[in-house]
Structures are given as structure tokens and as C-alpha cells.
């Protein structure tokens, strides 16, 4: 048995949390992977039970690996659960244990390459920026050889070419330059810090820039503080809690230097991570409090804009549907504000789709690592999209954005349906 297994797994895994599960099965219809994979081992109830069994030593950790690996982390099972099971915690604990368990095996070239990406690229926005225009996904292609034997090898060239098609054209050096401090025309109504994120800031820089302009137009003083870094969501989701903690500390410290009313982001996935920073420090009171303060200031841009007045200037004549980000719905629990903002755009016609809260299958880098599984989930989503006649799909998270674009592409509808981030439409309506 390895190191982790020898230690008390009941402590390492969220064993106590598993007892809140009464196995009623109410979460099953909400779970996208149960729907597409059709097995309980890929359902919340199944996964929770396996974690419990592993903690009790009744099954080896290796039995947990695939079910946990294939979980989207979309957390649609949480609102569906009548007994409030903390699935997020259970999942995270399993990832941490599996990550540590595998550390031993992570010595080969491939693991080093993956670790390099996670440890030396994501945390440094400036490096990502340099890569910037050559795009994150190309980086993955370049590393393909090195990534041999890891799961990322699943990202075969033909698949990457799919992502290539839908990834926005790289920003030129001119676009990459950006103001770090924006002042509104009049006395600021709010002073906010802006969190651009790392990967998404290279692929979707325009959206971040637009977000900042919108905040400015709505009367905010907006600042990108130095020394902020990657939110750590991807690290945390792969079980690397140690790095996630370090990144969290760095962000907390960076934003503590200024007195911001809010720390704003326009990336549902990062926002979710930031809003749960305190979960990382449950064994450290001082950092717990600091993280909690940070988390409570963390807001999605739609929340902040919905509190303010936007200077709409023109109609946006589009019929759209809305694909909310799971991390915004189930973790940040933000559902009404983005929708209200969307509907407030002059000229917009909004048509809801069936089961909007079902995950699109993007889930961080799930769609890269588990391409086939992700496409099955996406195809389910597209069935609901196809039921509504629209010329746009609105999202609030770059990951979902790319995935929905891929979905539209797969349906051969790229000419009819465009995908937008909410802030793009808001920006257009404000003439920015």
C-alpha cells in the first residue's frame, strides 16, 4: 500500500460528509454523466458511496479513479439533493487523495510536462501572455509528445483541430496591451478590483477588456492589481490542493492591498473557485478568515452590473437563449442577475431552453481530457438547443462559450447561431 492509503483515509476523504447521503437517488436525473454513461458508478450517489467504501478500506483507491475522473464537477447534484450533501467537498477530497496517491507515479517525462504546465505556466499570467497569441491550445499540441501516457494524450490532433476552429483569433500585440487602471467620467460609485484569470485571459482577452469597460461605463473605478495569479481552480480540480492553496494566498494578499468593494470576474469557473477559497483553509483559522473575506467580495460581473445603471445606447436585434455556467448556478448560486441583465438589453428577445442548468460538458479542461465523454454530454445539450429557434447562445463563462461553439459547429449551424459572452452583448448595446 502506498503512503496515502496507510494514513487514515477516513480523515483524508470527506468521510463524515458521505453520511449525509441517504441514497434516495434524487440526484440521479440531475447528473449529466449518469445520463450519458448510464451507470451508477458515474452518478453522484454511486460516487459518494465509492468514496465511503474507499475510506472504510473496503475497496482500493484505484476503484475510485475512473468514477471520480469522469465527474464533471458541475455540482448539479447539490441543488437536487434533499439532504444538502456537500458533494463538492466529497469530490475535492477524493481528488486530493488520488492526486497524492499518484504522485509516486508522476515521475516520467509526461507527468513532468503536465506539471510544468500547471506549475510554471498557469500561475504566471505574464508567461501565458507571452504565449498569448499563439494560444493555449496550441501549447497543448506542442506538448503532445511529452504528454504521452498521461490522460492528455487523448487529445488527438483531429480533436485539437476542432478546438482550433472555434478558438477566437489570437489577439495581436496591440490588443494585448491594456490599461490596468480605469477611471469613470464622474466620481466613482464603486471601486472594484478586476480578476482577469490566466488561460481565459489569453484566449478571451477581449471579453475581459469589455468587462472592464462596462464597469467603467457603469461608474466604477476598475483596477487590475499586480501580483495576482491563476485562481487555482484547475489545480484544485485535479487534486493539487497544495498549489491551489499557494495560489489562493497570493491572490488574497494581492487584493488585500487595496480597499475594493468587490473583486469582479467575468469567468464563471474562476469565480466559483474564488468564492470558495475559504474551503481550502479549514484547518487554518487565520487564513480561513482572510479567505472568507476575499470570497465574500468576489462577484461575477453580472452581479455587480445588475446593481448599477448601464448607459444603453442602441438596440441589439437578436433572439437568444441562455446557457448558464454550472459553476455560477450551483456554486456561486447566481441565477437571476445574469438573466435579468440579458433581458434588459434593448432589442433582445430571450427564449429559454429546456433544462438550461444541465452542464454542457466543458467543465474546466474536461472536454480536452475526456473528449468523447464530453461530446456525448454536449450532444444532449444540443438537443435542447435545437428545440429553440434562436440566432444566439449567451454564456457567462469562457469554457462554456467554447464548448457551445463546438456544439453549434458539430450541428453544422455555425452560420445560423453565434455564441456570445453576456458582456459582449452588453458592450454592444452600450456602444463600447
Amino acid at each position, binding site marked *: 500500500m502506498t503512503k496515502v492509503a496507510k494514513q487514515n483515509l477516513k480523515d483524508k476523504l470527506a468521510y463524515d460528509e458521505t453520511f449525509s447521503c441517504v441514497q434516495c*437517488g434524487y440526484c440521479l436525473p440531475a447528473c449529466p454523466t449518469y445520463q450519458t454513461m*448510464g451507470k451508477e458508478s458515474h452518478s453522484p450517489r454511486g460516487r459518494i458511496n465509492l468514496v465511503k467504501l474507499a475510506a472504510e478500506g473496503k475497496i482500493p483507491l484505484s476503484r475510485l479513479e475512473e*468514477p471520480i475522473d469522469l465527474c464533471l464537477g458541475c455540482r448539479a447534484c447539490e441543488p437536487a439533493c434533499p439532504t444538502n450533501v456537500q458533494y463538492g467537498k466529497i469530490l475535492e477530497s477524493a481528488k486530493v487523495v488520488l492526486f497524492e496517491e499518484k504522485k509516486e507515479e508522476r515521475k516520467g517525462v509526461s507527468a513532468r510536462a503536465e506539471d510544468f504546465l500547471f506549475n510554471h505556466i498557469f500561475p504566471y499570467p505574464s508567461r501565458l501572455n507571452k504565449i498569448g497569441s499563439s494560444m493555449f491550445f496550441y501549447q497543448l499540441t506542442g506538448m503532445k509528445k511529452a504528454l504521452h501516457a498521461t490522460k492528455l494524450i487523448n487529445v488527438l490532433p483531429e480533436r485539437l483541430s476542432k478546438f482550433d476552429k472555434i478558438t477566437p483569433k489570437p489577439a495581436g500585440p496591440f490588443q494585448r496591451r491594456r490599461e490596468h487602471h480605469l477611471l469613470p467620467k464622474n466620481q466613482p460609485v464603486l471601486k472594484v478590483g478586476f480578476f482577469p484569470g490566466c488561460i481565459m485571459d489569453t484566449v478571451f482577452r477581449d471579453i475581459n477588456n469589455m468587462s472592464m469597460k462596462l464597469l467603467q461605463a457603469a461608474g466604477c473605478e476598475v483596477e487590475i492589481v499586480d501580483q495576482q495569479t491563476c485562481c487555482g481552480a484547475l489545480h484544485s480540480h485535479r487534486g493539487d490542493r497544495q498549489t491551489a492553496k499557494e495560489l489562493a494566498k497570493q491572490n488574497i494578499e494581492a487584493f488585500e492591498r487595496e480597499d475594493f468593494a468587490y473583486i469582479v470576474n467575468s469567468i464563471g469557473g474562476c469565480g466559483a473557485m474564488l468564492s470558495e477559497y475559504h474551503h481550502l483553509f479549514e484547518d487554518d483559522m487565520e487564513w480561513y478568515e482572510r479567505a472568507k473575506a476575499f470570497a465574500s467580495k468576489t462577484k461575477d460581473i453580472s452581479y455587480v452590473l445588475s446593481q448599477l445603471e448601464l448607459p444603453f445606447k442602441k438596440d441589439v436585434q437578436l433572439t437568444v437563449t441562455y446557457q448558464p455556467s454550472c459553476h455560477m448556478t450551483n456554486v456561486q448560486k447566481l441565477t437571476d442577475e445574469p438573466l435579468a441583465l440579458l433581458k434588459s438589453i434593448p432589442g433582445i428577445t430571450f427564449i429559454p431552453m429546456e433544462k438550461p442548468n444541465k452542464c454542457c460538458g466543458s467543465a474546466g479542461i474536461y472536454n480536452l481530457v475526456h473528449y468523447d465523454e464530453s461530446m456525448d454530454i454536449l450532444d444532449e445539450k444540443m438537443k435542447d438547443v435545437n428545440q429553440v429557434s434562436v440566432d444566439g447562445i449567451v454564456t457567462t463563462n469562457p469554457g462554456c462559450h467554447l464548448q457551445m461553439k463546438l456544439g453549434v459547429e458539430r450541428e453544422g449551424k455555425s452560420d445560423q447561431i453565434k455564441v456570445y459572452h453576456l458582456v459582449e452583448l452588453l458592450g454592444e448595446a452600450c456602444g463600447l
Partner: protein
Amino acid sequence: MIELLNGFLKELSHAIDNRKVLTKEEDRYCYSYDASFGQYLPDVVIQPTETEEVATLVKLANKYGVPIYPRGQGTSLSGGPLPVEGGAVIDCSQWNQKLEIYPEDMIAVVSPGVLTSSIDQKANQYGLMYAPDPSSSNVSTIGGNLAENSGGPRGLKYGVTKDYVIGLEVVTPEGDIIKTGGRTVKNVTGYDLTKLIVGSEGTLGIITEAILRLIPKPQATETLMATFHDIVDSGKAISTILQTGIVPAKMEMMDQASIRAVEDYQPLGLPTDVEAILLIELDGHQVAIKEEIEKVRVTCEEMGAKEVKVAKSKEEALELWKARKLVSPAIVKIKPTKISEDATVPRSQIPAMFERLKEIREKYHLHLVVFGHAGDGNLHPNIIADIRDHEEMERVEQAVEEIFHAAVELGGTLSGEHGIGTMKSPFMEMELGEVGLEMMKRIKESWDPNHIMNPGKIFPSPGQRLVLRND
């Protein structure tokens, strides 16, 4: 044993698409439980989606003597689908391909894995409804509902699953395909095998298709909430309302313990000093039920209600129902393990049953809350405990036994809707008598001569006791 199993698996692999046969340990563990107690590891899980496949695998099971256990979505509260003797779990939850509505015949034809609520939803599109509404209808399969003869709040007015099934396709325990009943409501040709299969908990065959009766969907609903200082008064209100000829679609009650739990969990402004809350829903023609809800209001007041609220809008109605919806999440905040009983008594005995439950709660020092379908005597005494506390769980087991005794003594039954499964089989003889139970056994023996179809359920093994633990 192992050889027989291997033989079974080998032949199976030639007969059935291997993707439908799960043998990995992590997969098998995920079919080792249901929503009740106990965990039993099956040797294999099979996910058929065609009647022929079922017939084939059942024949093979007979040939090799491998026990098989039909399973829907595993929401049973009595251990029905547990593979207690190992063998093969037949997971029907993925078999949901057919859901056809015939509006002119007012019937639905469905595969066994279709979710109960989707039948109702689809029927609604035609102005029809599928009336049985177990609270689990968003998750449970129609196959499971049929096998357990499930019912829900609407049971009071509309009856339960057995009242809506008119035909079945079943694979018998020996692997033959039979059809029972048909597409007509009236049908007296021979023994009513349909009704025999319904409620048989998967011990007499695997249901592979069902023909269900639909009824017109009522146009409107009215909702009322009444609070009572004395729980006995609420019982009287229930019987008086029913005697006036009004049959509410739903009549649910919450006792003080559940009201307090809800208020602690999510304050809704419910009065915590009352002993009971009644929630009543009428459905039917708008004009008629307006008049009736007024009568119900007056009756509640005459029976000593402290306060009566009639919802003025759909939103207000939802708000009133919210209290009831929150009971489950609220009570598990107290302790994680919920033991959900469904002993049912004749309506007139509801107040007496409440007395008995109160005594039991005090005698065993347990968190016992009562809520549920008061209108049909199907109370849901729920005990909240912690499965890790063995001493407490022993008290729970004793309390549950005593609840069963109380119900039977008051002329009621062990189970109104959750079924017998593994959990309640030790008490069968108490309710049915020796001969009654023996006659049932004879039916089982003649249908399933090789004892392979869901063994270990309904009929107690010698000396079997109630066990509410997982290990």
C-alpha cells in the same frame, strides 16, 4: 458456485451486448444498495433494453442457478432490489425507450425504466394525467412503482399504481414472455394476473412493458393550510371533511417535531407552538372547488383550528407547500440517518396511532417525527438517528418493531406503499397469519420453482429479525 457463475457469464457474453454487462468492482458496488439499509455485492450487473434479452438471461439464470434481482432506480425504502444472495442485478433503469400516449384510448404504453414523472408530463400535453404520484416520481421508474404498487399524496382521491395498470408484459421466473390484461379498462378473462404482478416486488417476474390508464387532468386546484393546537382535532377535521363528501386531491399533515425542524432549518414563519399542520389541496372544476374549499375552511375552524389560510394564487399555494417539502431536508440536519416508515392505519385510528407514536418516541428517547398522507391513514413516522451510533440504532430497531405492532393492532398494515422487501419480512406472519402467508408462498413456489427471482424478499428466513445497519 463459482463455476456455475462463470458458466452463466460465459453464455451471457455470447447472448448479450457486452456493454450491457458490468463486472468491474466499482460498478458492482454501485448496485449493492438501495435507499434503505444493507449492502450486498452482486457478481454482475446486466442492463437489458429488450424483452428478448431478459428472456434469454432469465433462462440462463435458471440453467446455472444464478439468483437475479430486478432493479429500477434503487429508491426502494424496503430493500426490494438488494442482491442479498449475490448473483445478477438486472438494472432496468436504462430501458426507457418507449413512452407512447394514445389519447383516444386514454392509455400510455411504456418501457419499465421510464421515470414515473415523465409519463405524467407527457400525458399532460394531451390534457391527460397519470395520477399515481409517489414523492419519488422524478427519480423512480415505472417498473419499480409497479413492483412496489407505489402511491402518493393523490392516492386519497385517485388511488395508487394498481388502479392504473391494465396490462403488462412480463418475463416469468422461468424465462417465458407473457402478456397480462390488455388495452381495455374492463377485462375479466381469467385470473387477474396483472394485479398479482403489481406489488409482487420483483419476485414473480420482470416487468418489460406496461399499459397504463390515464385520466383527464383537472382544470384547477385550491390549497389550504390549517394549524391545530391539538393533534387530535386535526384528525377529527380530516374525518369530518371526508364525511361531507369532499375528497381532496391531497391531505398532508406535519406534526410539531417536523414543524420545529423546518423552522430551525429555514424559517418560514410557521407557528411552532401548534401540534399539527394540515395541508389540503382540492382539484376539479374551478367554480366547484372554490365553493368546496370554503366548506373545508369552515370545517377546520369548527374543529378547533387555530388559523386557516387559503392560497390566493399559484405562488401562494407553492409557498404553503414549501413547508411540507422542507421536512425531509430539515430533519436530516438533526442527524444524518433517516428511517422512513409507512405503517398505515384505518382513518378512524389516526388519533390513536398518534398516541402510540408519542409513547414510542418517549419510551426509546428518539427523534421521531410524523408527517405524511393523513387523508388515507398512511402516516410517515420518520426516525432520525446516526447509523454510526450502534446503541441508538438498536433502540431504533426496537421502536420500529413497536410501530409495526401498533399499526397491525389498530387494524392497519405494515406498509402502505414502501413494500416489504428484506426489512419487513419478519413481521409478515403477524399481519397475515400462518395460512395467509403460506398461501402467498405457494404462489411464489409455483411461479419460481428454481428460486432464482429476487430471493430473500417478502418471505422471512427462519429466525430473521429487523436489521437497520449496513454492516
